[in-house]
């Protein structure tokens, strides 16, 4: 018999339906009656901008209203003019910036020539960073250039900025870099 599988399904489907209307089928409705609740139903909604590339897609962050306020979900903001709800694979995974067991929550330090990273305190690391930046910056600080013009710059530190910074963090970061006299400042989003 030359019957395709789809035709076969249809033939047998008809026979089963025949039995069903004769009262021998059984009622499925109780099984199907459970409506599903949205995991974001009781969450707080906050809008944000994706921190990854220069496109600047809008996103909605759903955080728990109870207790810890952790992130439940982040998805594209349908009302945002740039992306209208869409997000690429990087943007769609953005909740993992916070909700991630591999995320570092303490500063780590690897001494010169050491092979291992070790946990250090915030106090120690911030002091170390400040001291070293100051030392390096002061070592090459120029008040005036060769023509005698005031420049107030330090050219021996370069900033290649973080791709995971948001707009507001970038502003603060830029202000800090300019304040200490950096002129070589670059950010991932421009690349």
């Amino acid at each position, binding site marked *: 018999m030359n019957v*395709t*599988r*789809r035709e*076969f*399904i*249809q*033939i*047998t*489907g008809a*026979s*089963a339906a025949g*039995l*069903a209307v004769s009262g*021998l*089928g*059984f009622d*499925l409705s109780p*099984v*199907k009656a459970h*409506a*599903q*609740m*949205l*995991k974001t*139903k009781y969450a707080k909604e906050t809008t944000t901008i994706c921190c990854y590339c220069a496109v600047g897609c809008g996103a909605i962050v759903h955080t728990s209203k109870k207790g810890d306020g952790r992130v439940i*979900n*982040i*998805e*594209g903001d*349908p009302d945002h003019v740039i*992306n209208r*709800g*869409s*997000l*690429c*694979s990087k*943007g*769609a*995974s953005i*909740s993992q910036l916070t909700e991630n067991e591999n995320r570092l929550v303490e500063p780590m330090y690897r001494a010169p020539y050491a092979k291992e990273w070790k946990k250090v305190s915030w106090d120690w690391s911030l002091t170390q960073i400040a001291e070293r930046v100051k030392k390096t910056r002061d070592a090459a600080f120029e008040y005036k250039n060769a023509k005698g013009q005031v420049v107030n710059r330090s050219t021996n530190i370069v900033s290649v900025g973080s791709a995971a910074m948001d707009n507001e963090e970038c502003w603060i970061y830029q202000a800090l870099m300019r304040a200490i006299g950096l002129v070589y400042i670059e950010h991932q989003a421009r690349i």
Partner: protein
Amino acid sequence: MSKSFFVDTTICTACRGCQVACKQWHDLPAEETKNRGTYENPADLSFITYKVVRMREQVIDGKLNWLFFPEQCRHCIEAPCLETAGDPGAIFRDDKTGAIIFTANTKRLNTAAIIEACPYNVPRKAADGTLAKCDMCLDRVENGLLPACVQTCPTGAMTFGDRDEILALAKKRLGEVKKKNPKAMLIDEDTVSVIYLVAYEPKLYCKNAMASNAVFDITRQMALKRMIRPLTNITSRLL
């Protein structure tokens, strides 16, 4: 009105936003994978991966093409998995949307038979024997949202809506694509809720892009089960 997806592979860029958005919404963990010499990753669908973008390098008419195919459950209108199971507590159809939903009770089914019954090789089994696959984001759809994969799609390759509108859109778009690619076609559009538009032969995109006719034996088993099921129901009621 039941719902359908339209996936226009001709404008898919394989960004994999759909893949990630699916994981994100369903709170599914990452797969451990390794570099297999392709951007296609993970290697296959699994109990924790409902959607995979297939990427194939194919030489067509002497020209290299990189073909993308975001693979997922097709939510068949006559679903062989559902028919094979015959157990609405484990696999059922949501009448409003047409979504085929697997529950935790799939553990009590003959899972090998369910997997073999699928013409698109979609369901995957966990270590404890439970089956999983795309659920059409039924929770989102019931609450007026788009499925996570559709909402996130940056190029508009994926659309979702009432079946008649989606079918009309698919046919309109097919007309446009055919001008450039005469071999373009919709895949199994009359029998599934996830309608793919491809520019070339479906088998070039991935192995199970189109339903295969080669599973006739399995379908026969399925058909027999379906025919005798009302009788087994009666016996279980009498007992």
